[in-house]
């Protein structure tokens, strides 16, 4: 029998606010344990939460970017369970009335566009973390670090519309790109800023009844998500083929084996006893707030890509690469704004600029060559002042020295020679020194042409205008 996978994803996005969701503590990652805490995020007796407006702003942004309806009234709820790193014994989250609902994202897999529904986006606080063994000052015990407690999260829940691991990864990449574009998440998956729970089930092809699903928790790389889902699909199919039954349970992905394993079964599932948090009044969002936020959104990757294709005439591939990150697209557009030709700027940003950044291990935001400088360089090429090849040398110099390209060209005497007299003189000398090859060319061996071009360029130290060289050389060789 053939099987069909049904996949839904729950993505946790850690928001890039300076302070926590219900208190004023810093959210900086990696500080010494419990140094970023106050009575509120420690859950001391008597404390009360106060909602950080920035978190709401970020949630609205995420909702608008994923085509959700923003609820005019949403409610915070308490999710009650006991865990040592959960200071209040409950997590403040949203339940029945989340801030965003009924959205969607379009993904593309193998040239096919597919729409994935987004059920809801809700705001919640993160828990702290436990540090086991060798805790400084505690010896071999377990320590509770509450620096992360109360950091703001969005949980983005998809509809079970995804049918393969590749679709899942495409959806996740797209979501990742959007939240980073929006400036609401740093996207750092290793630090857990963007992590995913995958709900996977299988059913016979053609069936309309979903199989029993499992939930694989906290997978934090695109590669692992693909592996985990593929493994889980395979495992469930094998199990069913062997006459077994999939049990509803929570599973963990082990990156070392590429497999998932059971974490806890449904019989241990929690009853979270959700109810509206009486310490927080319902959140009322005005239409004006939503519309102001909509106006402040950056152009999102999809829109940008199609604009690059239609208005700038770039290829699908170029548009895709240039919009991969907001910083890359902005760098590119800053070049255009400075007067760079679109195609030339695209080639350079994707070529030399990216190469140099990769070699230096730098992000485009840290690129030492400013868009205006790169544009000036491109203009030198356009004007014929330097050749494309020379331009690469100039670029390397710009990377090192913070000098304007004109200055470098001037200083190093790199101005392209287009003066026909000077070039003609070089050609004449070369031809005189290589009469044998001249004869070969005239005898029909046109391959020798390349030899002459090389000689002329070398003699001019690369400064001769290749187009002029080609034209004159052809004329003279043909006699």
């Amino acid at each position: 029998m053939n099987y069909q996978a049904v996949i839904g994803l729950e993505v946790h996005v850690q928001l890039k606010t300076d302070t926590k969701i219900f208190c004023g503590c810093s959210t900086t990652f990696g500080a010494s344990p419990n140094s970023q805490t106050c009575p509120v995020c420690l859950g001391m007796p008597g404390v009360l939460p106060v909602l950080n407006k920035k978190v709401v702003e970020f949630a609205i942004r995420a909702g608008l970017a994923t085509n959700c309806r923003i609820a005019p009234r949403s409610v915070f709820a308490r999710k009650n369970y006991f865990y040592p790193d959960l200071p209040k014994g409950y997590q403040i989250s949203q339940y029945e009335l989340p801030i965003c609902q009924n959205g969607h994202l379009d993904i593309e897999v193998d040239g096919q566009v597919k729409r994935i529904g987004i059920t809801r986006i809700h705001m919640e606080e993160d828990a702290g973390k436990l540090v086991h063994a060798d805790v400084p000052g505690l010896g071999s015990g377990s320590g509770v670090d509450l620096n992360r407690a109360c950091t703001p999260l969005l949980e983005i829940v998809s509809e079970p519309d995804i049918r393969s691991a590749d679709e899942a990864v495409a959806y996740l990449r797209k979501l990742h790109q959007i939240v980073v574009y929006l400036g609401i998440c740093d996207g750092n998956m290793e630090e857990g800023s963007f992590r995913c729970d995958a709900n996977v089930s299988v059913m016979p092809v053609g069936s309309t009844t979903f199989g029993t699903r499992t939930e694989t928790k906290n997978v934090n790389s695109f590669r692992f998500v693909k592996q985990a889902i593929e493994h889980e699909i395979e495992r469930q199919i094998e199990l069913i083929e062997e006459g077994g039954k999939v049990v509803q349970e929570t599973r963990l992905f082990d990156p070392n084996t590429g497999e998932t394993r059971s974490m806890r079964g449904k019989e241990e599932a929690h009853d979270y006893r959700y109810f509206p948090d009486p310490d927080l009044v319902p959140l009322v969002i005005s239409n004006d707030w939503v519309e102001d936020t909509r106006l402040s959104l950056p152009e999102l990757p999809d829109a940008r890509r199609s604009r690059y294709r239609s208005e700038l005439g770039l290829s699908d591939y170029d548009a895709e690469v240039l919009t991969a990150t907001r910083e890359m697209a902005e760098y590119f557009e800053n070049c255009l704004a400075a007067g760079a030709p679109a195609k030339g700027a695209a080639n350079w940003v994707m070529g030399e600029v990216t190469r140099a950044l990769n070699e230096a291990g730098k992000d485009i935001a840290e690129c030492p060559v400013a868009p205006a400088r790169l544009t000036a360089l491109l203009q030198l090429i356009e004007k014929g002042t330097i050749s494309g090849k020379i331009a690469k040398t100039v670029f390397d110099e710009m990377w090192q020295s913070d000098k304007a390209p004109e200055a470098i060209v001037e200083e190093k005497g790199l101005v392209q020679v287009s003066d026909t007299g000077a070039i003609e003189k070089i050609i004449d000398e070369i031809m005189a020194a290589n009469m044998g090859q001249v004869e070969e060319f005239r005898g029909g061996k046109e391959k020798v042409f390349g030899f002459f071009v090389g000689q002329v360029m070398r003699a001019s130290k690369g400064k001769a205008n290749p187009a002029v060289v080609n034209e004159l050389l052809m004329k003279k060789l043909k006699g």
Partner: protein
Amino acid sequence: MELFELTLHELHDKLAKREVSSVEATRALLARIEATDSRVNAYITVTPDEALAAAEAADRRIAAGGLTPLTGVPVALKDIFVTRGIRTTCGSKILGNFIPPYDGTVVAKLREAGAVIVGKLNQDEFAMGSSGESSAFGATKNPWNLACIPGGSSSGSAAAIAARSATATLGTDTGGSIRQPASHCGCVGLRPTYGRVSRYGVIAYASSLDQVGPVTRDVTDCALMLGAVAGHDPLDSTSIDLPVPDYAAALTGQVKGLRLGLPKEYYLEGLDPDVKRALDAAIETYRGLGAEFVEVSLPHTDYAVATYYLIATAEASSNLARYDGVRFGHRAAGAANLIDMFRRSRAEGFGAEVKRRIMIGTYALSSGYYDAYYLKAQKVRTLIMQDFMKAFEQVDALLTPVAPTPAFKIGEKVDDPLQMYLSDIFTIPVNLAGTCAISVPAGMSAAGLPIGLQLIGRPFGEETILRAAHAFEQATEWHRHTAQL
């Protein structure tokens, strides 16, 4: 007259005239605590060193001309208020060793005003109780009759006022916990409108019902205390951003033309005869002062107690989850594993009433029962609120009993929680409606125990009920009666 016998405003006048110093008044209070508290048990913690230091600071401030109504006045706080550096137990063993690292908003306001905190008052554990018997630090006694309960849960607040071992106190009122003990101890107790006073730093019992309020010797003191602690707090999202009126200025003595409602559901056959007599007399007094009476109906009153015990316990089951032995408070020794540690710490740390309510609340919120209990209770709560709003279309305030009986004997209802819960039948609807109410002394029972009357006001109608209570106080002598200790 001894210094400890003075009301807040009398002491304030003497401090203003420099007839006494705060240090003298504080010493007098500390001596009074020493003399009475072994019998009354109103205090869990007395802080003489901090109090005398604060009194000295207050005297310097008074000398410099910085006197406010509370400067230099010895006050005591229910042990539910978080106090930086001072043990805060909430009447529970589970917090028996808890020293908070911060002051709540109300405490900070009192300190800023220059009040002298002399100690932390006994209470029913986590404010759960109507008799003061469920404290892990022993039952509080009623100063009028040490064999009787003082009422709860702000038992120590009312008992200390009656015993003259605090000049003014603060309590909290979740289902009547200020008004009922105030009534039983012959004090004035005010539950303000929900959102009027910040709850930041008040250990939560039931967040949507809890409210901070004063327990004092007379209505003027009550107005002064409320004025000192009321107001919006950016640390409490549920506190309301409205200006704080000058409550003392509202005490004009005038009730002529005031329309008072008598809810027919509160005047049932079988109301204790002493209570009934006191109420009838009070109505006559008000008529004499020119107030008008209107019979009104609060048709959902019957459901109030059940509704309260679902909502309050549901919230409590969640609010008390943080007491798990992990980070502060009592931790059981020798647990086998994590879950065992949680279980045993909570089993050892909480008393019977708290456990009972946590279990009721957990049940009410659990899946499959939520709709039938918690959600239904919320709907009934809305109906009860609407009852009040309709009544307030006809009247300025309601006049009702506070408690169905005068104070009962210690131990009398301990084994009958349902009977105990009915002690709050006349106070609970106010908490569900979120509005304000005051209890003022209005009589004495045949057995010599105080009886209070309750005036219920509109939301943020504190000035009206304070004015009405003050007029009654001026016209009667009940607040001048003093417990003999």
